[in-house]
């Protein structure tokens, strides 16, 4: 695996990766553990917001260090997830309200 990444990029990237992984894990843990749908709908947002942001930042950092020029291609994924994940959770909320309250 990538051992030739310079240290100035490897250290923050490793921290960001670990943080992103923990956020995604806590989000999924909440999805499993919370006891009603209305509480559960909030949990995966954790992985979709800060988890994704951390991992994408780490990816940009490592890709820029390897290519020796700024690579910001991943910013498109960040923008896309930021715009679409609220839309699907909003639609799900509407569906739950519609189906359970009539």
């Amino acid at each position: 695996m990538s051992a030739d990444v310079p240290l100035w990029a490897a250290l923050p990237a490793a921290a960001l990766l670990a943080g992103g992984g923990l956020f995604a894990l806590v989000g999924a843990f909440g999805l499993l553990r919370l006891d009603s749908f209305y509480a559960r709908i909030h949990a995966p947002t954790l992985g979709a917001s800060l988890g994704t942001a951390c991992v994408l930042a780490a990816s940009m950092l490592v890709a820029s260090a390897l290519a020796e020029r700024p690579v910001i291609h991943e910013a498109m994924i960040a923008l896309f997830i930021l715009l679409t994940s609220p839309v699907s959770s909003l639609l799900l909320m509407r569906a739950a309200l519609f189906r359970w309250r009539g």
Partner: protein
Amino acid sequence: MNAILPWAVRFALACFALAMLFAFLRLFRGPTAEDRVLALDALYINGMLSMLALGIGFGSAAYADIALVIALLGFVGSAAMAKFLLRGEVIEP
């Protein structure tokens, strides 16, 4: 000293795999259809994140494109399912 990044990648991949397992359990357990769609949503986000972590691990840019495709298709899928739950039709006449 520079082995820290591969270890961070392994740690992140383990986290995402565990998160996908949790989402799978919620997918099977339900109890409502909304819960299952929510679990699928979490599942594709974590799959996309593990692709990005693999891309960091192998130092390859191709994984970012895979992640972009997963993000696009996953959103279309969960939006279509949520719309189906909402109206009973995906594309209305």
